[in-house]
C-alpha cells in the first residue's frame, strides 16, 4: 500500500494552496489527487477576468490565476496525479482512488485535506414543473460547454437565478451572439456580486426580474419557452402574473452545494447550514487528521479567500502530521445569531491559534448601516460597522489571539442595527 504524509483530494485552487502551504511547512510526502486531466478546478472554465485582486493585486482570468498556483506546485516538486478520482475515504484515513493507469488502489494517508469544491443545484431540487427537454442546463454546465468544448448551447436564453455563474453566463452568451431575454431571481435581491450585476447585466441591458420565478417549462424534445411569474412575500407564484418567454435555452444558477459525498462516507459531521464540514480553528473536521477548505467547506465568492483559507488548512495538516494533535485548550463555540446564517469555524481552541483566527460567515438578508458584533460571556469581543451587508458577499472577520485568551463557552456572532 502506498503511504503519504498528506493526501489532498482535489486540485483546484483550494487543493493547490493547501499542498503548497504544507510543503512550505516542510512536509515532503504530499500528493494531490485530481479527477480532471489538469489542475485548476472550476477556474479552468472561468475565462473571464476578476480573479486575484486580493492575492496578486491584479485582475487575472481564472486559468491565469490557477496557472500561477500550478507553476508553484511544479516548482516545489509536489507530485499530483490527474485523471485520478478519490472514490472513498474511511475513518482510518485510507483513501481509495481510481485511474485508467493504476486501476483501483487504496493508499494510506497521515492526514487528508478535503478540497473537492462544489456542485450546482440541479433543476429537480428547484421543483420547477413542466417538460424535461433539451436546452435546460445549469449555468456551470453551459459554461463548460461554451468555454471548454466550444459549443454554444442556444440562441435565445432565459436565466433562472442570479448567482455569479448565471450573471457571468448572461454576458458570455451575449458575447457569443445569443439573446439573453431575462435573468429571473426568486428573492427580492440578487445572490450575485454587485460588480457582476453591473458588468454582466446592466452593461448589456439584460433585465433582472427580482421576486420572479419560472413556473412552467414548455417543449417536449427541445425547449420552446418558459413561463415566468411574480412571487409573493412567501415566494409563492402569484396567479395571473405569468409571462411567456420564447427561448431555446434555460440556464439555472440557483446556488452551489459543497460536494461532500466523500466526507459523509468517512463520517465527517456536516453542518446543514453550509452543506460543508463542521470544522475547528485549524479547519479540521470531526475526524482527526481530516481537514477541509475551499468550496467544499462553504461556498466562497472570491477565489482569493479560497486560497488563503486553504493555505491555513494545508499548514494545519502539516502540523498535525509532524506534531500530532494538540488538544486540551478551552473551547469557544461560535453561535450564529441575528442575521448570521452560519460561521466557519464552528469552534475555536485558543491554544491552537498562532496569531489570529479568521471567522467567516454570510448574512441572511440585506442589512444597511449596521454592525457585525461578537460577544462572549456578556462582553463584546468585536464590532465592525458596515454601510451595507449582503448575502452574496462572504464576511471575513480576523480576530487577534490576545482578544480570545481567557474566553470560553459560547461566542455569538450577530448583526445589530444602529
Amino acid at each position: 500500500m502506498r503511504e503519504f504524509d498528506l493526501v489532498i483530494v482535489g486540485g483546484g485552487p483550494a487543493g493547490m494552496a493547501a499542498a503548497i502551504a504544507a510543503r512550505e511547512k516542510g512536509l515532503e510526502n504530499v500528493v494531490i489527487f485530481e479527477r480532471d486531466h489538469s489542475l485548476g478546478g472550476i477556474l479552468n472554465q472561468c475565462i473571464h477576468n476578476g480573479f486575484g485582486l486580493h492575492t496578486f493585486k491584479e485582475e487575472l482570468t481564472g486559468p491565469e490565476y490557477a496557472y500561477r498556483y500550478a507553476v508553484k506546485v511544479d516548482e516545489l516538486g509536489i507530485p499530483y496525479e490527474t485523471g485520478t478520482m478519490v472514490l472513498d475515504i474511511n475513518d482510518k484515513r485510507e483513501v481509495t482512488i481510481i485511474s485508467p493507469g493504476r486501476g483501483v488502489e487504496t493508499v494510506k494517508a497521515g492526514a487528508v485535506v478535503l478540497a473537492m469544491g462544489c456542485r450546482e443545484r440541479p433543476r429537480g431540487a428547484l421543483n420547477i414543473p413542466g417538460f424535461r427537454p433539451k436546452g435546460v442546463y445549469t449555468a456551470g454546465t453551459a459554461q463548460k460547454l461554451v468555454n471548454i468544448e466550444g459549443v454554444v448551447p442556444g440562441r435565445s436564453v432565459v436565466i433562472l437565478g442570479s448567482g455569479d455563474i448565471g450573471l457571468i453566463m448572461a454576458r458570455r452568451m451575449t458575447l457569443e451572439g445569443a439573446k439573453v431575454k431575462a435573468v429571473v431571481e426568486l428573492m427580492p435581491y440578487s445572490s450575485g456580486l454587485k460588480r457582476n450585476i453591473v458588468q454582466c447585466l446592466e452593461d448589456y441591458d439584460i433585465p433582472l426580474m427580482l421576486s420572479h420565478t419560472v413556473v412552467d417549462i414548455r417543449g417536449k424534445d427541445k425547449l420552446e419557452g418558459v413561463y415566468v411569474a411574480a412571487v409573493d412575500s412567501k415566494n409563492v407564484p402569484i396567479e395571473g402574473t405569468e409571462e411567456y418567454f420564447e427561448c431555446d435555452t434555460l440556464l439555472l444558477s440557483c446556488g452551489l452545494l459543497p460536494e461532500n459525498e466523500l466526507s459523509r462516507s468517512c463520517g465527517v459531521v456536516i453542518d446543514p447550514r453550509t452543506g460543508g464540514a463542521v470544522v475547528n480553528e485549524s479547519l479540521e473536521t470531526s475526524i482527526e487528521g481530516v481537514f477541509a477548505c475551499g468550496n467544499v467547506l462553504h461556498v466562497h465568492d472570491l477565489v482569493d479567500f479560497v486560497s488563503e483559507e486553504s493555505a491555513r488548512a494545508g499548514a494545519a495538516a502539516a502540523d498535525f502530521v509532524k506534531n500530532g494533535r494538540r488538544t486540551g485548550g478551552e473551547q469557544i463555540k461560535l453561535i450564529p445569531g441575528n442575521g448570521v446564517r452560519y460561521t466557519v469555524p464552528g469552534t475555536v481552541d485558543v491554544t491552537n491559534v498562532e496569531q489570529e483566527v479568521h471567522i467567516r460567515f454570510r448574512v441572511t438578508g440585506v442589512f444597511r448601516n449596521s454592525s457585525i458584533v461578537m460577544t462572549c460571556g456578556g462582553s463584546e469581543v468585536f464590532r465592525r460597522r458596515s454601510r451595507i451587508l449582503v448575502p452574496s458577499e462572504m464576511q471575513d472577520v480576523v480576530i487577534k489571539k490576545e482578544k480570545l485568551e481567557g474566553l470560553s463557552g459560547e461566542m455569538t456572532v450577530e448583526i445589530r442595527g444602529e
Partner: protein
Amino acid sequence: MYDVLIIGAGVTGCAAARELSKYQLSVCVLEKESDVCEGTSKANSAIVHAGFDAVTGSLKAKLNVRGNQMIPELSKLLDFDFAMNGALVLCFDKEQLPQLEELKQRGIDNGVKGLEIVSGDKAREMEPELSDEVAYALYAPTSGIVCPFEMTLAFAENAYANGAEFRLSEKVISIEKTPEGTFGVKTDKGLIETKVVINAAGVYADKIHGMVSERPMTITPRRGEYLLMDREVGGKVSHTVFQLPTRMGKGILVTPTVHGNLLVGPTADNIEDKEDTSTTRKGLEEVRAKGALSVKDLPFNKVITSFSGLRAVGDTHDFIIEETEVPGFIDAVGIESPGLTSAPAIAEYLRDIVGTILPLEPKENFISERRGVVRFSRLSPEEQNELIRREPAYGSIVCRCETVTEGEILDSIDRPLGATTLDGVKRRTRAGMGRCQAGFCSPRTMALIAEKLGIGIGEVRKNGCYENGKGGEGDA
C-alpha cells in the same frame, strides 16, 4: 415481407419480439422514436405488482399474476435489476377494513400467494416510518420492483440477438390490407410488407387500430406525475407502500426503486394530448400531500427530479389482446398498469394468437441469455482492476453521482441497439440519473456520443430522432 411486424418498441412490443424470436419467424419492431423504451414504459412506478388489484377473471388479472411469476427468473437470464421487496396496502380507517379484506380475497381468487392482513402496529414494525394513522395493511410478499428501462432493453437486445429486426426513428403513417391478405405498412421512410401486424403502440394504439379496423376504439391518456428523491433517503421505506385503491387508480405510492432512490406518485389525470408528459405544480403538490399520508416526514427537500407518464386507458378497463375482425391484425391495446408486470405474459399470449395464424417452429439455436452493460460500481476491487487492465476506459469515472465509467458509456453506445442520445445513455448506464441530474457528466457524455456518431457535440440530442437518420438503424 416479414412474418410479424410489431408497431411500438415499448415493453409490450419488445417482450413480444423476444418471445416470437424463439421461433422461425421473421420479426420486425417498428418504433417512431430513436430508441426503444421512449413511451410509457420509461415513466411508471416500476412495480412488479402481485396481482390483487385486477378484477378476477379479467385478462389483466391473469396476465399480471403470470408476469409476476415470470419476472424473477427472467431478471437473471436477461440481466436486469429486480427485487422482491413486498408491498403494503394501507388503510387509515377501521371502516375500510372490509375493503382491504375484499382486496385480499380478490388476490387469493387471482392466484396471488402469501397475502396477509396486518394491524397498523404490525405494519409499523415492518416499516417503521409509516404514519401513525395507519389502521390496517394488506401485506403482499410477492410484489417487487424492477428497472423498467433495463427490462425493456433486455427484451429488445435479446430479441435482436435472436434475429429480430428493429427499425427505429420510423413512424407508421397508414396501413393497407393487400388483396393477398398481407399488409402494406406505410411509414415516413417507405413501405413495409408483413403477414401479421401487432399493434403495441401504447397511447397511440387507437390511431394504429383505426388505420385497419372499422370498430371504434379510443385510448385516453391518463397522466401520472412523480417525484424522485435522492438515494441518500432511499432507505426511508423498504416495501412498496400503497394506499387503498380508489376509482381513479391506485392512489399515491411510496416505494424504493430498484436502484435505491425513493419514488412517490403517481397522480391520475385524464388529458387530451398524447405527448403531454409535463409535470404540473398542482400534480406535484398532490403527490406531496397524499404521499405524506402514508409515510412520516417524507424528505421532499431531497427531490432530484420530477417526471410523468401516460397510462393508455382503453374503453373496457381491461387489456385488449386479440386478433381483430381483420385477419392478421392483432391488437395489444389498453395496456395500462400492470402492463410492465404483465409484459412477458402478454408476450406469450400474443405468441399463441400468432400461432393460430402462422406455424410456430421453435429455433434450435435460440439464445436465452443476455448480458447488460457492466455495472462497474458493483464489482469487487479485483474485478474492477481486471476490467481496467483490459480496457482503461473503465478507470475513468464520467458520472460522479452514480459512479459510471467511460467504459460503460462506450459500451452503451457500441452495443447492439446502442444509445444515440443522452437519455439513451442514461437509461443504459444511469449516467446522469443521480443527484446532480447530468450537470457534471453531460458535456463528457455528449462528447463521447458525438465522437461515436461522427457528429458535432452541439448536435447531440437529449432524446428524439436525428434528422439525418443517425442512430437507430439496427438491422440484423
